[in-house]
């Protein structure tokens, strides 16, 4: 059995001995590094995106900044991975570790549950300890409440939320005349429910003739075999499926549908990378559609192509799974440079209403009212034709087929943020 290594998590440079917690004495001599805490699951079995996301962020920090003289006059960026084991309690522990070691920026996004817990904790921490404030960069948790009812001055989201993605998805479906019966199935929790309700309301508005033939919720992480659900989909005569599933639930559902010989488009949020593309492979071709704010293929410019090639060279077994992380890092650094400091309050102000051209050549904008990022949203298809960068080294990858420009993705803000004083 060839010893395949998966979790490469080398702590770049730490001086703490294994004591209970004798603190980090950062060497004063060399330019003091700006340390960014990456709090996502590194262990646990349900979903493995935590590690590949860390590699992308860590590599981007070196590739774009450290190798080019650092930030704020030569200070290197250092990304420290902290394992939260996908639990709210452990996220708090790791947050406290980050604060102990003087980190002022936290990047996380694995699940909406952890993100909302972290956002509330940071809001409380900042109001109780003004001297050690922390800024929260959410790169993937899509629960609309995070920039809606539960929005916070210290939380910035670098991904479109569920309703925005549903707008794009339902527009793409509406544009397809031969879809008349849509089946919605999701995991029984806030995100799954949000996708369900959004699908029903938006399709009713855009294509009243489309019939929602099923709106099913299944327990998260409990379903071993999706066949009973699939036989319901088949008997409903659906000619399109919408699902927000991720991890093992996405793989099992995707494979179940394709195994049953159901040749219908499946609209998803997370049906790519970390073993999912490889596992779906041929049976998913031209069926799996993913709504996301990235353009894996065709690549628009050389900056993105060079970055991806460099990343693949350094990590052959991994893919650039979360390009949003690079966008977030670039905007964060731009705000630091503009504010001339790493103080979270000033960086937050500088980031509000900021526009930036990403490595993929697209323009993104961070709205000030609710700290929600807007970027062009795409519908890409799982195929092996026209794929310059595949995932899981499977020959299959995502090719963008439908794009909605930034302006059209803007949804009005429902956030009433309590803005802290200096």
């Amino acid at each position, binding site marked *: 059995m060839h010893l395949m*290594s998966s979790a490469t998590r080398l702590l770049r440079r730490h001086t703490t001995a294994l004591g209970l917690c004798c603190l980090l004495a950062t060497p004063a001599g060399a330019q003091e590094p700006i340390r960014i805490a990456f709090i996502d699951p590194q*262990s646990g079995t349900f979903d493995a995106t935590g590690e590949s996301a860390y590699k992308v962020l860590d590599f981007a920090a070196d590739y774009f900044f450290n190798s080019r003289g650092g930030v704020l006059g030569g200070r290197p960026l250092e990304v420290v991975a902290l394992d939260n084991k996908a639990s709210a*309690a452990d996220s*708090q522990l790791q947050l406290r570790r980050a604060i102990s070691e003087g980190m002022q920026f936290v990047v996380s996004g694995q699940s909406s549950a952890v993100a909302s*817990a972290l956002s509330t904790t940071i809001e409380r921490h900042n109001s109780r300890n003004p001297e*050690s404030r922390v800024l929260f960069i959410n790169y993937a948790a899509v629960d609309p409440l995070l920039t809606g009812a539960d929005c916070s001055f210290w939380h910035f989201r670098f991904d479109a939320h569920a309703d925005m993605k549903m707008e794009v998805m339902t527009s793409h479906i509406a544009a397809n005349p031969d879809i008349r019966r849509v089946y919605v199935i999701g995991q029984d929790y806030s995100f799954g429910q949000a996708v369900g309700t959004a699908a029903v309301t938006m399709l009713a508005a855009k294509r009243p003739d489309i019939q929602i033939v099923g709106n099913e919720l299944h327990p*998260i992480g409990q379903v071993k075999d999706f066949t009973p659900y699939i036989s319901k989909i088949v008997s409903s005569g659906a000619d399109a499926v919408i699902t927000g599933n991720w991890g093992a639930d996405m793989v099992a559902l995707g494979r179940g549908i394709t195994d049953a010989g159901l040749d219908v488009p499946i609209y998803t949020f997370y049906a790519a990378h970390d073993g999912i593309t490889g596992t779906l492979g041929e049976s998913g071709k031209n069926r799996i559609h993913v709504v996301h704010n990235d353009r894996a293929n065709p690549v628009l410019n050389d900056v993105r192509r060079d970055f991806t090639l460099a990343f693949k060279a350094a990590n052959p077994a991994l893919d650039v799974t979360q390009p949003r992380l690079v966008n977030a890092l670039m905007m964060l650094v731009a705000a630091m440079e503009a504010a001339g400091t790493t103080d979270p309050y000033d960086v937050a102000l500088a980031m509000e209403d900021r526009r930036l051209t990403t490595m993929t050549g697209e323009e993104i904008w961070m709205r000030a009212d609710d700290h929600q990022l807007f970027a062009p949203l795409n519908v890409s298809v799982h195929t092996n034709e026209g794929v310059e960068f595949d995932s899981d080294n499977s020959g299959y990858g995502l090719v963008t087929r439908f794009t909605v420009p930034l302006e059209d993705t803007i949804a009005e803000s429902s956030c009433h943020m309590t803005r802290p004083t200096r």
Partner: protein
Amino acid sequence: MRTLVLWAVFALLLMVLPLIFDSVLGVSILNQMAIAIVFALSYNLLLGQGGMLSFGHAVYFGLGGFLAVHAMLLTETQTLAIPLVLIPLVGGLCGLVAALFIGSFSTGRAGTVFAMISLGVGELLAASSLILVSFFGGERGVSADRTFAPPFFGVDFAQDVQVYFLAAAWLFVSVLGMYLFTRTPAGRLANAVRDNPERAQFLGYSAQRVRFISFVVAGFFAGIAGGLFAVNYEILTAGNLNAASSGQVLLMAYIGGLGVFIGPIIGAVLLTLINSLFNHYTTLWMLYLGLVFVLTVMFLPRGLTGLLMMHRLPWQQGRLGLLIRPYTLTAIPGAVLVLSLIGLLEMSQRETGPFVYLGIPLAPGSAMSWLALLAVAVIAFVALRRTLPGLRAAWAEATAQSPRSLEKGDAT
């Protein structure tokens, strides 16, 4: 008298600890330890003292925690005004009530039937926590801000250190409470029913009733631990009452040692450190934890405190000196063997780039480093095999009953 001194030292230690480990991380680990100790001790009331192996003890911890966080939420929205100091008691009462209900039908038998019922109830509640969203808050859980509670002598518990003192106070009360319980008729009968349920019946006691009392008391203290969790983390999620949390407390009690009262305390401290610190240095910490656990079950059935207790006999006979030399002789190759094996495992996780292991630069790519580590491991293993018999002999001699102590004991 001697126990009074011990309790005073314990109280003093609790006061001093936050001064030594005063960093934000240090205090939060201490808080976590306090919660884990109360939870592990309440578990040992069932397993170590009462002989009831439960795979669902996190149910009482979780339910207590959820009710506590709901109480904090009601205080936050001004419908109630419960001081934060009493929140753990709210958790405890909820754990008590849950144990009253579940204990009524599960304490009929100990052994496998009890274990299976506890597993069934645990899984039942964990699965339903994602359905009853109004109480369990679905997968986002339920969160509340503790600073809205009426201040306690001017303290609003915003800072972690203040929470530490609340947790330490409850820790002291709980440990004392559970210690005293084991010194009461009901506590001592729990041991009797553990050893021989049938004989206890012939002395006038229903084994089911005795187990039931221990079960309810354990539920109460598990609820307190849940309440402390709610105060410290200000959030409860479905993960707090699933099988993994029940498994964690089983590890703590077993590695610490079931037979001795303070066993679970040592287990809780050790595992909290491993859970919060080790995962910072290696992604394989869960593997090492699994190995430590399996080896403990196989070679140290009475846990770490059991190992210490085994040394009481030679210590009483002043023969401890005999063991020092063989211990060091076996410890060195043993340590080298373990470290080299860990090195091999860690290196397997590093695909490219420099890999510095204990200060020694190694290259995962080159066969040289693998061979070197392997050679060190083999040498250490051989050395270990030669020194082990020495240790066994010394151990046999140290624990042999000296004739003098035999005469004293055999008058009939």
